[in-house]
């Protein structure tokens, strides 16, 4: 089955739709739990495999033997490249965009070989010291499993599309042991919209996968950072500086990938075979002096949180991790960006905290808090998922007292990164791969057009009161064929000119001549709502929210279309000015 021609499961006979035993919705929720369990089990196995490979390659010590640090990543890089080029070409990169592609392009179809390939190649790459993380692959493995199960159960095309993000949330939740952050990330980054239907399924899958993960690997949060306390309100300024540093580091990271990845991708096939090995050797050479940059680096993040390194070392480690991750990721080695992002953030945060402690020793809290906040800042800056970044920090540390500095730093890092590098990394990667996937980040930039942008003032002639209708001859002279009429209770209705004249001449108050209630709008309603409500009415009343009898304007279909046309030409002009 080729990627471009996924199986279509929308034939009614073959689907569960309409069956009596379980409705489609109930089945979907039940499946979400089962997918969560599957994803949890797969992620547990994936993490254990990475550790087992690391023990085989480097032994049980944290510091790898020097003679192996260059050899192992190089040799394993060749093996990984061979597997990727020959057998699993779809497993390159992080896995987030592949899941989005499955959702938006391939009707939720992720081949089974991708799951196996992602598992094997990512475990080999990360276990051999490539500077990548296991979370994004876990996300893709979860999505792949969900897709596989959905296909096996012959779900409808619509549900098959939705089932992949459900699996993605389960995979990510198990990888980080963070159900809330996983749900938010999938909503923010993969699905791109809040939908009550899919939210329940995503939550169920995330929770069940985390339960499985905790069953096997324990319930401890990912990091146990020392207690946070704000030594003085002035310390918040240091966290703001950390946000700025995080934003700049995020910009450097994303721009480096933006520059290097297309160049390496353009190399001929022999280059693709060599790239992971070359990246591995370079990382190995760096690791002779700084072994901390190898692999996901969770142990070293924990050490940074516990004051193991001087601020200078933390700064160097942040810089080197940016370099090694850019090398690993741009070389096409399968593996994720989440863990390196957190690593860079922890080091930048620790360095900023270290400098602050040097300058103001009595006004600086524990360095671990800075490292934690730094993680969130880089996550917000690089991955551009601001909500996820806040909850991720809270969940990985189990420390909810730190929320204020996290929000300050994350917001600044997000804003700085967005202004210096407008395209988010996942959108950048998808465009480099020739895909045009929807972007929530870009959606956030789009201003919603509202009724107030299209409405016009009501003319006195077009708005009448039922109790004070003018005589029929006056009505006949008024322009227009449709009038807004306010009835005795103050509600606005509509009547055609002919009926209005009839009503004015016959005061016997015939019920069939009374104005029909019109759907009304408020000025802050989106034009999308207005389009849905207007139906065949020539125009609709726009009323005040507090005084629904007070007419503030009217809006017609032509007004709505004119507003859209105007905004379209404004955006075209803006795009032209940006291009020029």
């Amino acid at each position: 089955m080729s990627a471009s021609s996924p199986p279509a499961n929308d034939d009614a006979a073959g689907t569960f739709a309409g069956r009596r035993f379980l409705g489609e919705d109930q089945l979907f929720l039940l499946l979400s739990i089962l997918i969560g369990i599957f994803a949890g089990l797969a992620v547990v196995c994936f993490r254990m495999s990475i550790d087992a490979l690391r023990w085989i390659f480097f032994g049980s010590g944290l510091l790898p033997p020097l003679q192996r640090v260059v050899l192992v990543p190089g040799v394993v890089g060749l093996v990984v490249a061979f597997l990727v080029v020959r057998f699993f070409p779809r497993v390159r990169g992080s896995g987030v965009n592949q899941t989005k592609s499955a959702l938006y392009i391939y009707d939720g179809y992720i081949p089974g070989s991708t799951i196996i390939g992602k598992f094997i190649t990512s475990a080999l790459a990360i276990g051999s010291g490539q500077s990548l993380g296991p979370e994004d692959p876990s996300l893709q493995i979860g999505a792949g499993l969900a897709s596989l199960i959905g296909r096996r159960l012959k779900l409808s095309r619509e549900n098959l599309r939705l089932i992949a993000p459900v699996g993605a949330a389960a995979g990510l939740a198990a990888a980080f042991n963070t159900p809330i952050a996983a749900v938010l990330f999938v909503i923010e980054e993969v699905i791109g919209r809040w939908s009550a239907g899919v939210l329940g399924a995503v939550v169920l899958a995330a929770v069940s996968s985390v339960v499985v993960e905790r069953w096997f690997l324990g319930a401890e949060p990912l990091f146990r950072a020392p207690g946070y306390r704000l030594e003085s309100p002035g310390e918040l300024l240091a966290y703001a500086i950390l946000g700025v540093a995080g934003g700049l580091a995020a910009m450097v990271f994303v721009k480096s990938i933006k520059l290097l990845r297309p160049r390496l991708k353009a190399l001929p096939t022999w280059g693709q075979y060599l790239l992971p090995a070359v990246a591995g050797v370079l990382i190995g050479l760096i690791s002779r002096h700084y072994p901390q940059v190898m692999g996901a680096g969770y142990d070293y993040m924990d050490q940074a949180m516990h004051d193991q390194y001087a601020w200078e070392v933390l700064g160097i480690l942040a810089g080197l991790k940016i370099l090694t991750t850019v090398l690993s990721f741009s070389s096409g080695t399968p593996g994720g960006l989440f863990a390196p992002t957190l690593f860079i953030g922890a080091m930048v945060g620790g360095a900023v905290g270290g400098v602050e402690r040097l300058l103001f020793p009595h006004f600086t809290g524990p360095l671990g808090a800075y490292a934690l906040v730094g993680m969130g800042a880089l996550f917000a800056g690089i991955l551009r998922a601001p909500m996820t970044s806040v909850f991720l920090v809270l969940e990985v540390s189990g420390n909810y007292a730190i929320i204020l500095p996290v929000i300050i730093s994350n917001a600044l890092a997000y804003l700085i990164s967005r202004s210096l590098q407008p395209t988010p990394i996942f959108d950048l990667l998808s465009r480099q791969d020739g895909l045009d996937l929807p972007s929530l980040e870009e959606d956030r930039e789009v201003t919603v057009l509202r009724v107030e942008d299209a409405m016009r003032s009501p003319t006195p002639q077009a708005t009448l009161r039922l109790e004070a209708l003018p005589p029929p001859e006056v009505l006949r002279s008024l322009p227009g064929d449709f009038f807004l009429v306010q009835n005795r209770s103050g509600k606005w209705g509509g009547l055609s000119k002919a009926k209005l004249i009839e009503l004015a001449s016959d005061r016997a108050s015939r019920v069939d001549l009374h104005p029909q209630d019109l759907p009304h709008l408020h000025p802050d309603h989106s034009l999308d709502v207005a389009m849905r409500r207007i139906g065949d009415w020539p125009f609709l009343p726009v009323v005040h929210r507090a005084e629904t009898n007070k007419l503030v304007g009217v809006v017609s279909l032509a007004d709505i279309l004119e507003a859209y046309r105007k905004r379209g030409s404004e955006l075209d002009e803006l795009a032209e000015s940006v291009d020029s």
Partner: protein
Amino acid sequence: MASRFNIIHREHLLLAWLIAVIVVFFSLTTFAARAYHRKQERFGAVWYRRGEQALKQSRPADAVEDLRNALAYSRDNDLYRLRLAQALMADKLPQEARSHLLSLWEKEPGDGTINLELARLAAMWEDTRQAVRYYHAAIYGVWPDEPTAHRWQIRFELSEYLLRRNIAQDTKDAQAELVSLAGELPSRDAAGQTHLGTLLLRAGLNARALAAFRAALAAQPNLMPALNGASEAAFSVGEYQTARHYLLPIVAQNPKDESSLEMLNLCELVLKLDPFARGLTSQERARRALHGLQLALARAQKCAPPAPAPASRPASQTTPPGDDVSSLLAQAASKKSRLSERALASNSKALEDTVDLAFKLEKASAPCGPAGLEDKALGLLAQQWEASR
């Protein structure tokens, strides 16, 4: 009807198949996870043992590396983390040690060991407020074994820390800790009472110190540090007879102990010179009073400086009008003709005045240079006399 049955039947089958796959997958993962955890535990235990060994062999840097490895395999193992923190402290990496200890503290804020280590770190950084806070938390904290002994030990440590700071308020706090400890420590604990007595002496609570040493000696009569402490405490509170009692065995056991020997001689001289000692006849009292006056006169006459201008005298040496050496010598000269053993023996008021004059002279002669042993003894008696008045 048949097709509907088939559809429902197929749905059942698919769900059953899915659950069966989960059961198999779960079983396989359980098997793999057990092997994985066994391996992790083994690695952790091996590194921990190596770290412990390195600590025992005073190789803290190696211990730190080994214990870091151990902790990587068992991140929620509090014992590994605690030992790592202790190794870091031994390796002079207090910031990192503190960070690990704070992590542990977050989890177990009432743990005695963790609070004690944090207190030591705070004490090292001279953060007295935090140190006292953690020491108290350790004292009242949870100890898995011998909690009472730990509490005494920590109170000792806290008191020593406070006394070492040599600040009046801290000394007061140390006194409070020691008094509290004196109420808790069993009297039969000779070593503990000796330690307590030593600290009480340093804190200036000499009478309590003497009581502690006495308790120690009651439990272990020939305990040399207790004898030393008891003699010093008794001497400090003016119980020269008691001091002599404790000094005799010390000197007998170590005749070359010059300071003890000098103190013993001083005690004996005090006892010999004291005109108000119990059981003396009035003649003997008069004789001692006259001898004391002669000693004081001899010292005062040796240096008898011209009376300095009041402004040039240091405040501490300021004597009341008429109490300077020259005036006192003049007083003594005027009384000389009336002073005799018989006169003093029959007139207790004259005896007291004579003794008072002798002591004032001795005190006023203090700046005249190093005193001989008899003058020192007289000086001690003068202090006692002044205190009693």
